[in-house]
């Protein structure tokens, strides 16, 4: 900071400040002379009072001199100016205020939310800074600005601040700053970015604030305390896409973002059924709650988990969609490349076994086909007598959610099997062997949840029977097998068995169905095992196809059989949302005109729900603890008042009101110092008699 003067020409007046000193010195050098009867008394008195009087006199002289100096300084008209190296004198001031609009900003801090406080601060800054050009950029999931470039219409910006609401998005901080820098890139004059946020710890901890030094960058924090909060952080269902009647476990994780343990109640609303549980959550910990249910009807079932409301309501609800299947679609594929007659004869045995199995299981449908079916038609494709061809097609099918089971044919190579399941390489050739006495088989991985019902022994050995024909698969593959022969030859191999939820499931089947080759299918555990296995290997319909991120529009790629013009977007709570149609390469796409907020959204054609989406509150926004903006390397953290002071300083603060006050104060002090001793009340003031 430096001091400048409006009237430096009058600076010589400051020399007059020495008048009191000169008067003092002059008066001392030539005082009026008086004869006095006896100065012995006077000398004694001076001795007594000099210790008090001298400093007092000097103080009075000092105060008088200062008062005179302050009085004279008024004429020079000094003003205080800050020395901002980036500031160009006389140039336009361009200010971009970036306001955090992420979900955590809706937290109530006292009587107002953090976002309201941020808007008020921004409005005050615009009013008092009066920049030549300004703009507001909102930190949303997709940052957006009020103006395409900083503009002079501050009134419009202030109106925007008044009508703005916080979102449920995760703020894209870096993208917001990039947008601000982009807008300031081609602007001349003084450039400044003021970022107003709660500086929520999780969001800002690793934020990249790369602002060039030429642009003044200030961080202004709103919200001064960490707030306690309880949030549902996730919902998971097992299985993710059950069939009707299947037991479904829905587990919810509840987090406590506070230093004290909390107790609350969690409610689950799944397909119209409502359950609740009272829970205790440890301080700064989490609790998992599991609800069990079944669905009697197929379709997409909306599930809502909710907590007793706390002060931060946004994350007290969480949603998911459970796609409940009517049945599991099992398809038997005739040997690839075989003639229909051959195929029919060859697969007749195993396919008929699966057909009978499907008739025994109400949730299983079975079809036979000679061609590889397209993606998404069947859940499980059972390829009988696979000759090792079309691996790529099968891999694609598998990757798109179809479980592939192959029984090798004699023409199949071991490497092809190895390639299909990504098994360890083996130098052995694939050979088929017969054994009139037969082989026995059993569970390889007893810990697998697939065999949970067999663990009690009530249902016997799932591979109970005598098998008289098999392929000599390498015993090195035993680790990948779930059922194996007693001599360590794999009987059923499953890829990535440890990741049962993986989309891509592929199996090698080395257990003959043919009654001539084994008596397994006639054994009691057969149906139980097959049912458990089919449910276990059923493809997971990840609810990613249903979930959308907050801040992005609710969108749906309309299937060809639905007329997009008949579709309406209906949020579960509230009225229909406006949607717009756009044609993409994949087909007609519908999307909402406004960003999605947490909730469940139904795409309806008439009264029929064609598709369902859900949007959840971003988990990272639930932790309302704050970061000290000073901890962020870039920019300087300040209060709004500091920014205004700095601005006032940069404009120059006239000092005359302060000087007038100083003169008055100094004169009062001088009068007090000069009279306090003389007017000291004393009982001796009466005349001596």
């Amino acid at each position, binding site marked *: 900071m430096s001091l400048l003067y409006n009237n430096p020409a009058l600076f010589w007046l400051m020399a007059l400040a020495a008048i009191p000193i000169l008067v003092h010195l002059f*008066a001392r050098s030539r*005082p009026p*002379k008086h*004869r006095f*009867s*006896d100065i012995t*008394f006077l000398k004694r008195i001076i001795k007594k009072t000099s210790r008090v009087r001298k400093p007092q006199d000097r103080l009075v002289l000092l105060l008088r001199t200062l008062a005179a100096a302050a009085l004279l300084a008024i004429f020079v008209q000094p003003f205080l100016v800050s020395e901002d190296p980036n500031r160009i004198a006389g140039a336009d001031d361009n200010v971009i205020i970036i306001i955090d609009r992420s979900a955590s900003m809706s937290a109530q801090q006292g009587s107002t939310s953090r976002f309201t406080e941020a808007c008020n601060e921004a409005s005050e800054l615009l009013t008092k800074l009066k920049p030549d050009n300004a703009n507001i950029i909102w930190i949303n999931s997709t940052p957006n600005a009020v103006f395409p470039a900083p503009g002079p219409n501050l009134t419009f910006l202030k109106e925007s601040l008044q009508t703005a609401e916080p979102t449920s998005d995760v703020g894209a901080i870096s993208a917001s700053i990039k947008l601000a820098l982009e807008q300031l890139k081609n602007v001349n004059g003084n450039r400044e970015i003021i970022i107003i946020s709660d500086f929520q710890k999780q969001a800002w901890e690793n934020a990249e604030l790369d602002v060039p030094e030429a642009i003044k960058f200030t961080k202004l924090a709103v919200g001064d305390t960490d707030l306690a909060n309880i949030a549902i952080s996730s919902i998971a269902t097992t299985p993710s896409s059950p069939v009707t009647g299947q037991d479904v476990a829905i587990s919810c994780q509840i987090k406590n973002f506070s230093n004290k343990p909390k107790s609350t109640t969690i409610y689950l609303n799944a397909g119209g059924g409502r359950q609740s549980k009272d829970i205790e959550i440890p301080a700064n910990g989490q609790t998992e709650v599991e609800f069990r249910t079944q669905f009697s009807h197929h379709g997409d079932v909306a599930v809502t988990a909710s907590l007793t409301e706390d002060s931060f309501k946004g994350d007290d609800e969480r949603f998911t969609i459970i796609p409940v299947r009517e049945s599991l679609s099992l398809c038997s594929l005739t040997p690839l490349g075989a003639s229909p007659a051959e195929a029919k004869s060859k697969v007749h045995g195993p396919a008929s076994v699966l057909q009978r199995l499907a008739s025994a299981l109400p949730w299983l449908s079975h079809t036979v086909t000679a061609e590889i079916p397209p993606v998404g038609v069947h859940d499980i494709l059972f390829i009988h007598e696979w000759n090792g061809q079309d691996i790529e097609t099968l891999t694609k099918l598998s990757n798109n959610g179809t479980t592939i089971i192959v029984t090798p044919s004699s023409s199949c190579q071991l490497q092809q099997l190895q390639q299909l399941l990504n098994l360890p390489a083996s130098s052995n050739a694939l050979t088929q062997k017969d054994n009139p006495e037969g082989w026995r088989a059993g569970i390889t991985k007893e810990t697998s949840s697939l065999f949970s019902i067999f663990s009690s022994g009530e249902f016997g050995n799932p591979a109970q029977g005598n098998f008289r024909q098999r392929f000599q698969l390498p015993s090195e593959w035993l680790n990948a097998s779930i059922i194996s022969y007693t001599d360590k030859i794999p009987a059923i191999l499953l890829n990535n068995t440890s990741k049962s939820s993986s989309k891509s499931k592929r199996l090698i089947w080395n257990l003959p169905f043919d009654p001539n080759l084994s008596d397994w299918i006639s054994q009691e555990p057969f149906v139980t095992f097959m049912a458990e296995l089919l449910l276990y290997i059923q493809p997971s319909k990840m609810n990613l196809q249903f979930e959308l991120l907050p801040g992005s529009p609710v969108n749906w790629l309309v299937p060809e059989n639905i007329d997009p013009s008949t579709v309406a977007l209906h949020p579960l709570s509230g009225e229909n949302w406006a949607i717009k149609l756009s044609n993409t390469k994949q087909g007609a796409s519908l999307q909402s005109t406004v960003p999605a907020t947490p909730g469940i959204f139904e795409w309806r054609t008439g009264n029929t729900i064609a598709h369902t989406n859900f949007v959840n509150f971003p988990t990272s926004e639930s932790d309302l603890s704050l970061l000290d903006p000073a901890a962020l390397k870039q920019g300087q953290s300040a209060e709004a008042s500091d920014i205004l002071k700095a601005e006032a300083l940069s404009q120059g603060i006239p000092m005359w009101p302060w000087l007038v006050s100083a003169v008055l104060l100094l004169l009062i002090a001088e009068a007090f110092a000069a009279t306090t001793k003389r007017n000291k009340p004393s009982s*001796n*003031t009466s005349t*001596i008699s």
Partner: protein
Amino acid sequence: MQFKYLKPEDINKLRNYEFGAKALVEGYLSGRHRSKQRGSSTEFHEYRQYTPGDDPSMVDWRVFARSDRHYLKTFEQETNLECTIFVDSSASMGFKEKSELTKLEYSSFFAACLSYLIVSKNDQVGLQIFDKDIRHHLPPGSTRKHLHSILNLLEKNQPGSQTSLAESLKRANPLIKRKGTIVILSDFFDEPKQIFQALNPYIHRGFRIHLFHVLDPGEMNLTDRGLSMFTDMETDEKITIHTSSIKQTWQDELKAHTKALRSLAASRKVDYTLISTQESYFTLFDRLAH
């Protein structure tokens, strides 16, 4: 004959101070002396005709036998009062500020009047003019001539050099032969203890002592002159001081000084009176009457 310090109007005024003088002359001394030297110290004054109420024992029966008239034979009573007036004539006594008279003039007026009053009652009055030394000493006398000598001496007297009352009192002690009354007129700018140490011999000898502390109003209430250079009238020493800054302390010091004088005087049965030169010196006669 006209004297500077004894104006005719003062002489007229002094008649009203009969009672004061009587107290000084008779009330204190004459009673004692009368009892001591009864008959021998009387001297014929005059005859006068008897008037009812006169003491019949005073009638001169011889004259009655010769003239058949009642005459009283009156005698002049000799009281033997000896009063010595000490007048401080140091330089400081020449100070005046708010009064028309210097302290010395004021003291001289009072000394003259008192001398006149005493002589007029046929008592003896002496005068001692001193500063640091005894400048003039007139032993007690009761004649008109003696009074004139006193008045002349007062008239010629001028403020001298430094004062030392204690020293003067010490030196005057052998000069005053008979015990009597001592009246000291001074500004008492001396250490009270030293003054009373010098007075102790007089007190032991049975002197009645009156101290008249004469100050100018400008000394009693220091005039606010701002920053001033003061020159000591006795020593010519100079000091620069801001009067407003020491005014209160001066007042306090002076009060403490007078208080010390007063308490020492009270403890030794010495009469002490502080008087401002602005007041009439006749008020001192009232003080004497008490």
